[in-house]
Structure formats: structure tokens, C-alpha cells
């Protein structure tokens, strides 16, 4: 009877989990083309560990009846339980494979991996936090498993029985560790009061607990001392400034390296129209993810203006478009994208947008802004002329 209930529970689980797995696979398959960062590789390992726990729990669950009934008739059921477990595991693993793929994909992405960083000796605060999380989760798992093992084995009882048989008092390492009195000596520390049948012992405080408490108090005193008395640890604002500086340094170093020493970075003064097909298609894919909601999938306009006509609100040169994407026009609702895209990417998007002119998509929005006539050699246009035109930035109507 009991067992049937269990089996029902299991098959129900099985159904739900396999469908969940399918869903997850489909989902990651079609909607997240972006490669996850390398850190997810680490999470993949963690994921496998966690799946392992789930499996262990399931095995325990399926074997549960055997713990309570030790009659032979269970043997038959046991085999079917095992096949169920195998079936179930298949479901779980298919689900795990979603994540298992992630590390492989992302191995190419060099930056950000916690393990890599630590191996390289670049320990930063997030890596440390990662390990803290890791330890928390592992601890939690260990505790669950520990509890399971505790009641599966008869650790304590066996030892105590042994001690009782010998007639002497023998403390296990665990009891010594906690400074507990043995079960045999319990009557010596039993207090004389009884509350509705509940008695209380008067074991000493476990030493590790007590000293742990002291240590936490000491930690707190040092913490306050460092942050608020001698100021040797950075408070939020200072921490922010440090992070921004570090970011700037890392960025400029990267820029130096990637541009081969020449510090010439792309900005609104130096940008040129890109004609390369690969740049245009890179621009198109960024456009598709980030811009279509306001400007339409074909540049026909929507909340934002139409890109396919010859009219521009903020100027139509590549420099104007670049500048507008970079800094936005908040009063008109255009978002600044400088923190989201690199200058190269902005140039790609701007070039793609410029390539849309004259495509005449259906449902095109009416022209807005001023007529912009392409200079004969757009890329060679004197920057000063453009920047003064857009610099006015006044078409408020």
C-alpha cells in the first residue's frame, strides 16, 4: 500500500520533470543565441553536483519501503523501482544536458571565469563570493546527505549499545567534540523539573559553538573598527570609486593592446561609414535585438522615427547618427547606448541604419525632422561642419 503511493509519486515526478526538461531545452535552444559567460561553465559543474543530490534523494526515496518493511515480497517491487529510477534519471540528465552544453560553448570566452581567474591569481571580490556561495550550497547538500546517512546508519545507537554492553562509558569523538555527557551518564545531568513529561538535561555548551560565538563578536568589533574608526576599509562610495578606476584602467589597457599601440579610438569625430558586408550584418543583428521595438524591423519607424526616408531629426550624417546612438536624445525618448555598445558596434549599427535609405518598407512612418542631403563623399566630409550642425541640437518643435 505504502509502496504504491510511492510509485505513483515517482511516476508523477517523472512526467513533470521530463516535460520540464523539454521545455528548458527548447527554450535555451531558440531564444538565447548569445553565448553565456564562462562563469556559467563553473555553474555547470555545480549543476552536476546538484543533480547528483537530487538523484541521491530519489534513490533514497525509492528505497524507502525497504527501510520499513524487511519482508521478501519487496524484492519484486524493488526491481520495478530501479527501472523507474533509471527512467527518471534519464529525464533528469536530459535536463542537465542543457546546462552541460553551456560550459563547452563558453569555454572559448576567455574573460570572467572564476576558476580561471583564481588559477591566474587574479582573485577578485566576486570570485571570493562565488566560493562562498559554492561552500554554502555544498554545506547544505552535505547536511541533507548527512542527515540521510544518520538515520540510515545506526551510528549513535550502535555505539551506545556497544558501550552499554561493555558496561563502561565510552564517548564517541562526536560526543567529545560537543562536550556532551554520554547517554549513560545522562541521569546525572537531568534537571529535577518536568514539564508535561518533558525533561531537560544540562549538557554544557558545545565548545565549538561557544568559541564560534566569541569569534563572531570579535569579527564584529574588528569590522566596526576598520570601517568606522580607523577607516582602513572602503565604505560604499569609496568602493565605487575604486571599482570605476579599476574599470577605466582595464579598459584603457585593453584599448592600447587591441589597437596595436595607436590610441586612435572610434568616436563621433573620427567615425566613418562602414561598407564592409560583415560590419553591416553585425550592425543588423544588433539592430534586430535592440532597436526594432521603436524603429521597426525594417527601419520603417514606430515610436521612433523612420530611417528609410531622407529626413533626420538630429542630422543624417554617419557622425550624427553615431553621436545620437551614443549619447541618445533623452528629451525625445532616445536612449543613450554608450554603456551598452562599443564604439565599433555603434559604428556598425549606424552604418546599417544608413544602408536602409530608400528601401521603402510597408507602413513607413511619415518623415520627421529636416531633409538631409548626402554629401557626395560622406566619409570624407569635414568633421567640423557636421559637429557644428548637430552641436546646435536645437530642433525642439
Amino acid at each position, binding site marked *: 500500500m*505504502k*509502496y504504491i503511493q510511492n510509485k505513483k*509519486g515517482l511516476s508523477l*515526478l517523472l512526467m*513533470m520533470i521530463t516535460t520540464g526538461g523539454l521545455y528548458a531545452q527548447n*527554450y535555451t535552444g531558440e*531564444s*538565447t543565441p*548569445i553565448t*553565456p559567460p564562462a562563469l556559467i561553465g563553473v555553474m555547470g559543474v555545480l549543476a552536476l553536483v546538484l543533480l547528483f543530490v*537530487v538523484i541521491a*534523494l*530519489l534513490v*533514497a*526515496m525509492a528505497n524507502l519501503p525497504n527501510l*520499513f518493511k524487511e519482508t521478501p515480497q519487496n524484492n519484486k517491487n524493488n526491481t520495478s523501482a530501479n527501472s523507474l529510477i533509471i527512467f527518471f534519471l534519464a529525464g533528469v540528465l536530459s*535536463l542537465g544536458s542543457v546546462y552541460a552544453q553551456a560550459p563547452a560553448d563558453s569555454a572559448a570566452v576567455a*574573460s570572467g571565469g572564476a576558476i580561471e581567474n583564481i588559477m591566474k591569481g587574479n582573485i577578485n571580490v566576486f570570485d571570493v*563570493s562565488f566560493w*562562498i*556561495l559554492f561552500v*554554502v*550550497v555544498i554545506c547544505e547538500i552535505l*547536511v*541533507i546527505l548527512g*542527515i540521510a546517512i*544518520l*538515520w540510515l546508519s545506526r551510528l*549513535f*545507537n550502535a555505539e551506545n549499545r556497544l558501550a552499554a554492553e561493555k558496561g563502561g562509558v565510552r564517548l564517541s569523538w562526536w560526543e567529545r567534540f*560537543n562536550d*556532551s555527557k554520554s*547517554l549513560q551518564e*545522562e541521569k546525572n545531568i537531568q534537571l529535577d*523539573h518536568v*514539564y*508535561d513529561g*518533558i*525533561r*531537560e538535561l*544540562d549538557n554544557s*555548551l*558545545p565548545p565549538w559553538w561557544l568559541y*564560534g560565538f566569541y569569534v563572531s*563578536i570579535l569579527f564584529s568589533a574588528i569590522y566596526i573598527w576598520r*570601517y568606522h574608526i580607523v577607516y582602513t576599509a572602503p565604505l*560604499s562610495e569609496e568602493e*565605487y570609486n575604486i*571599482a570605476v578606476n579599476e*574599470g577605466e584602467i*582595464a579598459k584603457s589597457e*585593453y584599448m592600447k593592446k*587591441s589597437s596595436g599601440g595607436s590610441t586612435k579610438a572610434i568616436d563621433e569625430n573620427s567615425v566613418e561609414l562602414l561598407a564592409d558586408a560583415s560590419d553591416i550584418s553585425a550592425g543588423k543583428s544588433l539592430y534586430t*535585438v535592440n532597436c526594432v521595438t*521603436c524603429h521597426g524591423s525594417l527601419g520603417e519607424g514606430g*515610436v521612433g522615427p523612420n530611417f528609410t526616408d531622407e529626413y533626420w531629426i538630429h542630422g543624417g550624417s554617419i557622425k550624427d547618427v553615431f553621436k545620437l546612438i551614443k549619447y541618445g536624445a533623452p*528629451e525625445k525618448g532616445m536612449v543613450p547606448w*554608450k*554603456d551598452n555598445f562599443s*564604439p565599433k558596434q555603434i559604428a556598425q549599427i549606424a552604418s546599417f541604419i544608413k544602408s536602409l535609405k530608400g528601401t521603402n518598407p510597408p507602413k513607413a512612418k511619415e518623415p520627421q525632422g529636416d531633409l538631409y542631403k548626402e554629401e557626395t563623399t560622406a566619409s570624407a566630409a569635414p568633421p567640423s561642419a557636421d559637429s557644428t550642425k548637430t552641436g546646435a541640437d536645437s530642433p525642439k518643435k
Partner: protein
Amino acid sequence: MDFTLNRNADLHNSGGGVMEKFYYDNQTVKLFGYATLFWGVIGMLAGLWIALELVWPSLNFGFAPITFGRLRPVHTNAVVFCFFGNGIFMGVYYSLQRLCKARMFSDTLSKVHFWGWQLIIAAAAATLLMGFNTSKEYAELEWPIDVAITLVWVIFGVNLMGTILKRRERHLYVAIWFYIATWITVAMLHIVNSIEIPVSLFKSYSWYAGVQDALVQWWYGHNAVAFFLTTPYLGLMYYFLPKAAERPVYSYRLSIIHFWALIFIYIWAGPHHLLYTALPDWAQSLGTVFSVMLLAPSWGGMINGLFTLRGAWDKVRESAVLKFMVVAITAYGMATFEGPLLSLKNVNAISHYTDWTIAHVHVGALGWNGFLTFGVIYWLIPKMFRTKLYSEGLANTHFWIGTLGIVFYAVPLYWAGWTQSMMWKQFTPEGQLQYQFLETVNYIIPMYALRALGGLLFLTGVLIGIYNLVKTVKMGDFIANEPAEAMPLSVATANGHSGEHWHRWIERRPVQMLIGSLVVVAIGGLIELVPTFLVNSNVPTIASVKPYTPLELHGRDIYQREGCYLCHSQMIRPFRDEVARYGEYSKAGEFVYDHPFQWGSKRTGPDLARIGGKYPDSWHYNHMLEPSSMAPGSIMPTYPWLFDDEIDKSKTEGIIRAMQTLGVPYPEGYDQQANKELDEQAMHIVESLKKDKITTKKEKEIVALIAYLQRMGKDIKNASTSNP
């Protein structure tokens, strides 16, 4: 029936009283037990539904009451105050009588308490679904219900203390210490946090604003966890675990130390919910260090629970009740270990605003509170019905499915939280944010699906449990008034005896225990709250920050009503990535007119502190009507009713006057011209929408909401901070 006393059995009570016969009230216990199960299922169904809405946002069907922002407070309130609340009352009413050797003080008060609490719950559910929401998490109920809660809580307190005062047991057992501390602290928290100024029957504004409101709210919110989900449950553990295991409690002196340390330290830890916010640094640091110091006192309870099972582990294998309790206590240990870690700033920088927090609370809620409640119910019901549990096998099935449910719930969310946070913080080598917010959301949706599965498993277990209990009840023979007998208290024991433990003194004095608890819990609160209110430098004023316009205030009311704060923060932390993503980090002075504050605690969607002016009005219009039209892949629900319902302009005057009472500097007589200004501003928005070919009326709620959204964060542009 004649009952002669047995003097020999009672040498301690040498006063020589006569054995008194009396009856324990099981009826109230039973009712609270049924209510626990009923509201548990309702609360979990609401939770499951909103979990599914995060995967399939269309599940709100465009219907306001089942939209995430309204159903989520129903879920949290139902689970915390109805499922666990009734569970606490069930356990307290059962154990208190037996520990005091007395029937409850008054049957009438017991009845009023039970039915009053259920009425409050019904009213709470109805009003929350209708959108009456103060927007203070776990204290979302509007002022009439707050008043009712206070009354019923006082009734509970009278019944509790009355029973204790007429007890036949000289000393108070540790469970009762926890009950007393719970009662007095919850009363203090509820009253202080609920101070609000009513505008109408179901609308009020928090007395506090901005930083102060945030501090009070999280002082409350954190200690609701402490004194509603921890201390009463520790009390239950101290009674039901030794009863079920038939073992003595491990250590009396550990009980004493961890009880007083726990209630003293817990109350300080609230600011750890506000790390890196505009809360003054000193308060944040107090939150961190007291959270770290909280670990040992919390674990004291776990140790005393688990070690009480020494010599009874073979019973754990056999008894579902003990299994539930063991996992509950273990989950308590895990959650209280994780809590201090999450309070460290470097960990909090990652975990906060993510699903990590949600996973963390659910280990506590599902594991500790949920499983302990079921352990207690499985033990109690057969006892009161004088029978055995219908099926030990079903109870074990419930246990295992529930455990699996917890794992499936928590693990994907830990993972989701960590991953998303890392993605938020990821910069490209060129110094740009690598991921758009929406990409990070879409990446973790599979984890949300698994979490919903975990919730479904847990709920399935509960339903199996209810079936089992119904069958047990049908088999049994309920004993509404359980006979008992005990000697009355004698004068001789009133002063204790020499050589007794020093703590015995207060165990004989419930009133001193009550006052002592209050003093101990008041210290931390006072030290944190008072300076934040009185010392000006804690909230440097910003000259350019101006009060909201009447239309914006209406928009803000709508923002609260729809529970926007549940998925969107309004607090940009001083992190490189947040400043890059959202703009200049938030300053304390920006929130001085925010009654109540709207900082939020979770970012299912992006931060909105500086959303004003980022998008055109038409973007917001389209986005509220169909979020995925402006943000493909968004999991935000649709809000079609905002386009039909109209702003209640009759309330404007009252709102302005209430704000004036709260110290918002509107000019004298402004309430009279407020609606005129409201119309003008609304007309402006209608015209700007018209430019984008959108036609709407200026009376529609969406116009007010757009006004509020477009205002957010604008004050500080070109602002200068000045320290008075």
C-alpha cells in the same frame, strides 16, 4: 467521580493543595489546525501561480486581481500570517495549556481570536486582490486591517498571559519564553511599522518617508522573519520535538543563552536588507555585524533540537513526524548559516535583488516552517482524535516529495540568482555592459520553470498530507475537552530554593519575562531608528528635489496598487555596472517626499529609479498595454485595465492634505488648485501621445502612471548636494 489527592507524588508542592481537575481545550487547537491546512493550500496555490506567471506572463489573462503584483502579496501574506500564523496558534494553544497545566484563560477570547484572525485573513485576501496595498512588504494590508490585527493580537496576548498567570506549574518552560517574546515583539513591530495617515477607508500613506521608511520597514520585515517565523517556531520545537522523540531536551543552559542572545541580536540585523543603499553607512555596518553575531544564537536552537534526538535516531527512521522535524531543524540551520553570509557586503553585492534571496527564504519557509508545521500536525491530530495516523506510508511520501520539492525549488533559484547577478556585472573589455537586462532575464527563465516544478512538488506533498489527515480524522474520535489534573501552585515554591540556577528566578515571573523581553528587543531598534530620524546628516537634503505633482501622486498610488515595487527596485547602488546601466547612484536626499519608499527588494525587471525621460511617453503607453511589443521576450504582464479605468480626482484634495500633514511642503491652499494642475499635466501627456498617433483621454489611469514614471529620478539632474 471522586479523586483523592496523592500527597506523596507531589512532595515539591508541600503546601498540600488538593489535586484539581480541569479540561484542556482541544477545539480551538483543532480549528487552528484546519485553518493552517486550508490557508496553506491557498497560499501555496497563489505562489505556484505567480511562479508560473514568471514563465508564462500571459497567465494573468489581462485580469488585475491575478496579476503578479497583486497575487504576490497574497502569497506572502497568506503563507506567513495564515499558514504559519494559524500553525503557530495551533501549536501554542496545544502546548501552552499543557505546559501551564491549565485550560486557556478564556474560551470566549479563544473563539474571538480564532474567528477574528480568519476574518482578517479573508479581508486581507480580498483587499489585496482589489489592489489596496500599502506597498510595505509583509505589511501590505491597509489601515483598517492593521487596526483589526492589533486588536486580535492583543486578545491573543491576554489569552496567553492570562493562561500563564493562572498556571499550575511554577516555572515557565523554554517554549513559553519564546511565546512571550514573540507576542511582545510582534506587537511592537506591527505598531511601529504600521503608523500611517489614512486618506480614505482603504488608502493610507506611511508616516515615514524615504530612508527612514526603508529602515523602519526592514527593521519590521527582517524581524517578522525573526519573531513570526523563528521564535514561535523554536517554541514549538522545544515542546513537540521532545514529545515526539520522547527524549529530554539536550541542554537547559544552552536554551537560556541562545534565547536571550537570539532576541537581543536579531532585532539589530534589519539593515542587512539595505546594504549599499542610501541608508547611512553606520546603520548598514550594524546590520552586517549583528547578522554575523546572530549565527551562533540561531544555531543554538538547531543544536538543542538535533542533539535532543541523541539516542532516538532509530525512531527518526520510523517516524514521519520526526523526519519532518529533523529536516525542518536542518533547514533552519542552513537558512541561519546562509543569512549571515548574505549579510556580508561582498556577498550581498551579488545576491541582493536576485532570486538568490528568494531561494534563501524558501529554504526557511518550506523547510523550517513548513516541515515543522507538518511534523506538529501529524503528531497532534492523531493525539486529539485518539487514533493512529491513517497511513505512515503516505506521510513518508509527503515527506520525500516535499523534500524533493524544496531541492527543486531552491537549487535552480540559487543558480539563477548567481548567474543573473554575474551577467549584470559583466563588462566587455571595451568597458561596455555585456548584457541587456532582458537578456539576463531570458537566460534564467528555464530556472524559473524548474522552480515552479519544485513548488508543485511541495504542494502535491501537502495535498497528500491533507488526504492522510482527513482519513485520520474520520477514523478517530475527537476529544474536545481533554481531562487533566494537577496540584494548584503552592506558596512554598514561589521563592525557589537555594542552589537553583539563577535563571529560575525569572522563570517564575511571567510579567518580568515579558518586560525583560521588551527591553532586550527595544535596545537595537532604538539605537538604529532614533539617530536616523533625528540626526540630519543621515539624510543630506538636495535642494532640487521637489514634491510630486498631483498627477504624479496618483500615478504613484497606481504604482503601489499594482505592486510594481515587487519586481522593480528604485535604488541604484554605487556599483560600476548599475551606474552604467541605470545612471547616477541613488542618494538619500532624493527620497524625502516618498511616503512610502519604493526601493523594492527584487529586480525581476530593471531598476526604475531614473526611468524618467529615458523613453518617450508613447513607449510607456505601448509597454503597459503590451510589454513584449516594446521589449520582446519581456515577462512583464499586461495592464489593460489602466487604459479603461479613470483617475479618482475626488481623492486629490485629501491626498494633498495628507501629504501636507506629513510635512511635504505644498503651499497653503494647494489642495484646492491641485486638480487644475493635474488636468494641465495630463493634457500635456495626452498631446505628446497624440504626436505618436495614440489617442487617449486625460482621465485615464495610464496617463497618471506615465506622469509618475517620467518623473522618477529627474530631480537630481544638475543637483547639488548640501549638508545642513
